[in-house]
């Protein structure tokens, strides 16, 4: 009888560390991983196909749901693709608002990632600390767009509306004492920009707290250093982007290498790693959070001094103002036409990519001149990262699979689409 050396275990889709509905078939020899076969598609919703039957305006909401932890970053790629095709010039204030929210989104994504990474390695408290700070970021989303997650705030030609002058406040209730209520509303007295500014002041200290718990922790280092190492050449040929590529030492950040929006007017650094292991990915992301705070600060300062329009002057694409619609028949008809029939893109194709928190997030649209895309393809950053998991995990222990999977930062919403 042939002697069996290996056996398979089924990891997920209900596994606590499977990050959504990922299923891995892991071939083990003892506890050493021989190969991993990722089974994706459990969250496939056919979004790309659905968008072929929706007007361009209606499809915007789908983009929030690709990578559902960095919503506005996805929207950014989409609206940029449409604007490129329509040759619309976006007002500068709108660009700054977009960059501000793109960085808020980056923080949001990195905080969830850091929390989940800590939780997967057993550091439970980090998870809850990260969610505390993420809640403030969600409040910013809510104040600007009205939705805490699926914002649909970036529109073709700008953003949905200007930043509000007041922050919504907590209401009094029987389970909040006066003092607690005052604490909760303390930094909500001014405008949204004031709220963001108070966050910018407090957040670097919070990052220091997380670093105290993790960065120099011996267990944390032992668990992450030298785990999931990928070389520079291999990372490039595997199609890695974002922190996975930068951890190997390649300073590839679309915000610097192919500047879009107003990133060329802002000063920030691109942190790169050396070893390409899980620890470098962690260090890079911590540094990226600090850089994002710097960018946010610059945006807030600029936005305070430069009021102006937030939507482009392009009546065929941008809906008329609410006031105008109330007493102008043509504006009313225009609004109706825009939101039913939509607008048409010229015949052709376009690709636009942003530096999504997870890597390069691209949108490729083929238009046949109609008001719906002929074909739309989303280039998700997580997909090539997940595809390499077998190579990254080979020879490591079962516990390292969790570490590596977590460090990839995949979201099945964008992998499965």
């Amino acid at each position, binding site marked *: 009888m042939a002697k069996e050396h290996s*056996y398979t*275990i089924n990891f997920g889709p209900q*596994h*606590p*560390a499977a990050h959504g509905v990922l299923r891995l078939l892991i071939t083990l020899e003892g*506890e050493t991983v021989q190969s991993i076969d990722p089974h994706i598609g459990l969250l496939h919703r056919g979004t790309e196909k659905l968008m072929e039957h929706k007007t361009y305006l209606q499809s915007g909401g789908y983009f929030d749901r690709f990578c559902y932890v960095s919503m506005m970053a996805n929207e950014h790629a989409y609206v940029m693709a449409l604007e490129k095709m329509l040759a619309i010039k976006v007002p500068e204030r709108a660009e700054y608002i977009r960059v501000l929210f793109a960085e808020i989104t980056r923080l949001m994504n990195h905080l969830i990632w850091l929390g989940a990474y*800590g*939780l*997967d*390695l*057993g*550091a*439970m*408290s980090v*998870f*809850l*600390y990260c969610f*505390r700070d993420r809640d403030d970021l969600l409040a910013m989303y809510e104040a600007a767009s009205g939705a805490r997650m699926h914002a649909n705030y970036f529109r073709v030609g700008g953003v949905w509306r200007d930043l509000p002058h007041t922050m919504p406040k907590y209401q009094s209730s029987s389970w909040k004492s006066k003092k607690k209520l005052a604490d909760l509303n303390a930094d909500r007295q001014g405008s949204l920009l004031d709220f963001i500014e108070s966050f910018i002041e407090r957040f670097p200290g919070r990052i220091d707290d997380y670093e105290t*718990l*993790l960065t120099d*922790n011996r*267990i*944390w280092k*032992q*668990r992450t250093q030298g785990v999931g190492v990928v070389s520079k050449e291999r990372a490039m040929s595997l199609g890695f982007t974002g922190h996975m590529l930068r951890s190997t030492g390649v300073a590839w950040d679309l915000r610097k290498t192919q500047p879009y929006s107003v990133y060329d007017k802002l000063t920030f650094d691109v942190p790169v790693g050396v070893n390409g292991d899980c620890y470098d990915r962690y260090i890079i992301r911590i540094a990226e959070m600090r850089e994002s705070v710097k960018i946010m600060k610059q945006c807030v300062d600029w936005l305070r001094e430069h009021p102006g329009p937030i939507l482009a002057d392009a009546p065929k694409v941008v809906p008329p103002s609410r006031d105008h619609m109330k007493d102008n028949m043509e504006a009313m008809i225009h609004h109706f036409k825009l939101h039913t029939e939509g607008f048409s893109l010229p015949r052709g194709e376009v690709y636009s990519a942003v530096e999504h928190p997870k890597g390069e997030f691209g949108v490729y649209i083929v238009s046949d001149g109609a008001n719906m895309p002929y074909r739309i393809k989303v280039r998700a950053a997580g997909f090539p990262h997940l595809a390499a998991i077998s190579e990254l995990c080979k020879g490591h*222990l*079962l*516990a*390292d*699979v*969790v570490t590596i999977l977590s460090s990839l930062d995949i979201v099945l919403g964008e992998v499965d689409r």
Partner: protein
Amino acid sequence: MLMIFIYALCILIPLVVAVAYLTTLERKIIGYMQLRVGPNRVGFGGMLQPIADAIKFVTKELVYPEHADGLLYYLSPLLLLVPSLTAWAVIPFSESWVLADIDAGLLFVFAMTSLGSYGVLLAGWASNSKYAMLGSMRSCAQIISYEIAMGFALVGVILLADSLNLQKIVYAQAGGILHWNWLPLFPMFIVYWICAVAETNRAPFDVAEGESELVAGFHVEYSGMLFATFFIAEYANMIFISVFTSTLFFGGWLSPFEGIPYISTWFSWVPGIIWLAGKSSFFVFLYLWMRATFPRYRYDQLMMLGWKTLIPISLAWIPFISAMKLWGWV
């Protein structure tokens, strides 16, 4: 015979209550450490939470996995629970309160805590599940290797007390806080504490449960009251190790103010069990604190720590403490 039974109940009933409330306390303490509130719905401030948990556990269905080994599957929770309760027999709670004042007390405790690994091993094996099997294999390797370091660490205690009897070990530490074993045996105490945490399968050494990789490890297939039995055993073990640590290294039921003029007489009315409970509570808290702070070790790193760091340290300290004893320095 009847009296022994009553004495045993006098230990076990408060112990089970303590276990029940330790689960709530853990959720509360870790909750506050993590900016949460913890359970606060059942009873005043969550005081009835363990009772609600118990009702839930009792009413849940006992799931029996296909092709599991019936006898061992139902037996193994007990194999874990019984030794963890039996070990309490030799603990001296105060000057006169000790159920079994046997000479080989320390050895008995050692035997009982080691027996628990059978429960873990058989639970994983009998469940017929790969995750449970991996968990129990890890746990066994861990318990066996940490037992060695722990044993060596305790040799120091035995040397200093000239006895294996726990009551005598306590008496040997009489004379105030500086006479307790933690000071001359400080590296041994640290080694012992790390081993003890590993022995009870608690964070950061909970690789046998390994929540994020093995889901729940050896008890992944258990439900209802069988699952609860594992938990009672784990928490009883935690409390036991805390009490045991206080007894061996922190003077057991002795007053910390002994030997200090005036203060020691002011506190002379306090019964020894209060001191013991106070010292043990600190170690229980330490368990929870560690759980809220540290990431989990990887299985091979855990073994490396045990064999390459802890065993050499404790081995090196034994000749040192023997020499000190020989020349009468301690």
